[in-house]
C-alpha cells in the first residue's frame, strides 16, 4: 500500500515542521526520517521535499544556513522559527480534528465494529 499523492502533499508541511521541531536537520536526513516513521509507505521525492523546504523558508516558518558539523560535509541545515512552531501547532489542531472525526465515523456510535465494511485491496 502506498499513500495517495494528494494525502502525501497535504500532510507534507506538518510532517516537515514536526521533524524540524525535534531538531535542526537537512534535506537528506529529513527524507530518511520520514521514510523511517512511515515504514517506507510515504512516497516522498526530492521534487516534493526541496521546493517545500524553500517554500517554508519563504513563508518564514524555517531558516536555513550552510553549516559543517565536525567530520561531515558542508550542508544546508534548516531550523524551525517561532512562527513555524505556531504554524505547526495550528496544523496539528486541524489534523487532530480530522483524525478524530474519521475515527469517530469508522468506529460507529458506541460500537467498536465498523458499520460499513471497508473493502481492503481488490478482494474482500
Amino acid at each position, binding site marked *: 500500500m502506498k499513500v495517495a499523492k494528494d494525502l502525501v502533499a497535504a500532510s507534507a508541511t506538518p510532517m516537515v515542521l514536526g521533524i524540524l521541531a525535534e531538531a535542526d536537520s*537537512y*534535506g*537528506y*536526513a529529513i*527524507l530518511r526520517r520520514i521514510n523511517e516513521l512511515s515504514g517506507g509507505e510515504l512516497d516522498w*521525492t*526530492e*521534487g*516534493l521535499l*526541496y*521546493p*517545500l523546504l*524553500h*517554500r517554508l523558508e*519563504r513563508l518564514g516558518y524555517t531558516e536555513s544556513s550552510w553549516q559543517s558539523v565536525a567530520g561531515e*560535509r*558542508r*550542508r*544546508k541545515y534548516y531550523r524551525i522559527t517561532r512562527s513555524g512552531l505556531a504554524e505547526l501547532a495550528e496544523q496539528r489542531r486541524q489534523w487532530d480534528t480530522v483524525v478524530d472525526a474519521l475515527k469517530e465515523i469508522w468506529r460507529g456510535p458506541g460500537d467498536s465494529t465498523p458499520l460499513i465494511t471497508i473493502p481492503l485491496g481488490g478482494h474482500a
Partner: protein
Amino acid sequence: MTNGQDELEAQFAQWRQYVQRRRELRKSDAEELEDHLRSSVDELVAVGLRADEAFLVAVKRMGSLDDLSREFAREHSERLWKQLVLTGETDSPVADTRSRRDLLAIVICAIGAAASIKVPELFGMSFDNDPAFYGPNAGLLVLPWLAAFLAWRRHATKALIGVLLALFALGAVAANAYSLTGDSQSVVLSSIHLPIALWFVVGLAYVADDVRSPRRRMDFIRFTGEWFVYYVLIALGGGVLTAFTVGTFGAIGISPEGFVTQWLVPCGAAAAVVVAGWLVEAKQSVVENIAPVLTRLFTPLFTAVLLAFLIAFGLTGDGIDVEREALILFDLLLVVVLGLLLYTISARDPLAPPGLFDKLQLALVVSALAIDVLVLLEITGRITEYGTSPNKAAALGENVILLANLAWSAWLALGLVRRRTPFAALERWQTAYLPVYAAWAWIVVLIFPPLFNYL
C-alpha cells in the same frame, strides 16, 4: 579505490553540469541536491555497492531532472522570467566586477551627457532663444558620451579613437561654421541629418572591435532597434515623472515649470540616450529582442495597408495630390518598410529555408516600391516645374537612396523565395549599404548649406 573515487567525482561533475543548465535551479539548489546525492551514494556504498553502481542508483532514485525542475519551477516561478541583473548577484565574481565597472562607466557617461547639454548655457545660450544652436548641436553634445562608453567597452584602438574624435570635430564644424539663420531650411536639415550622421559615428564605436565584419554591422542594426525601443520606454517613464513633478508641486503652490523645461527634460533626455545604449549592451543575452517581434506583428499589417492603397489608387484613377509634406511622408514610409525588412533580417535564422513570411516580406517591399515610384514621378514633375530647394533636394536624395536599396532587396528577396540566392546575400547587401546612409547624411550637413547659398 582512488581510481573509483576519481571516477565518481567525474560523474558528479558531469551531473552538476546538467543541473546548472536548468534555469529553475540556482547554484545553491544544485549544491543542496548534490549533497543529497552524495548522502545517498554514501549510504549505498555502506551497504556494499560499488561507487559507480551507487551513483547510478542514487541518480535514478532522485528521478528525472525534468520532473525535479518542474517542481522547483512551481515554487520559484519567478526564475522563469529572465531578470536583467544590473548589479551583482551573478554567480561568478569576474562578471560581477565587470558589471560594476560598467555601471560606474555608464554613470559617468550619463552625467557627462546631462551636463554637456547645459554647458552652452554658460556661454549665454538658452533652449528657448537659440533653437538654431541647439537643433544641430544637441546630438553633438550627447552622442560622443555614448560613443565613448562603447569605445571603452570594446577596447577601441588609438587609431579608431582618433577617427571618432575627428568625425565629431567635423560634426561640430558642420553645425557651427556656416552662419545660418534660425528660420532657414538648412538649419532644420542639419538638425535632422547631423544626429543621423553622428549615430553612424556611434556605430563605428560600436563595431570598434571588428570594423569590417558584416556580422558586427548587423549587430549594430540590432543595437539601433533595441536602443530605440528602450529610449521610448524610458521616455514614457520620464513623462510620468514629469507629470507627477508638475502636479504635486503645483498642488502646494510651487510652479516647477522652469525646473522641468530647463533641467529635468533636457538633462533626462540626454542621459537617457546613454542609459538606453547601456541597457541594450547589458541585456543583450538576457531578454528577447523586441524589435524583431514588433516587425513580425506589423509586416503583415503594413503589407495589407499598402496593397489596399494601391488598389484604391488604381480604382479611383486620380493622380496623387502631392502636398508639400507628401515627399517626406513617403520617405518615412520607405524608412518604416526598410526598418521592417532590416529587423526581420536581423532576427532570421540564416540557414532557414524560405517560408511564407519571406513571401509576405517580398509583397511588402514590392508594394512600397510601386507606391514610391508613383510618388517620385509626380515629384520630379513638380521640381522641374517650380525649381528646387534644400528640403526638396534632401528628400529626393533620400528617396532615391531608399528606393535603390529596396529595389535590390526586392530582387534578392525574390531570389530567396525562388531558392536562387542564399539569405546571406540579402543580409550582406543591407550591411554593405549602411555607409551610404552615413555618407548621404554627411553630404546634407556639409555640402548642402553652401550649395544652396545658406538658404
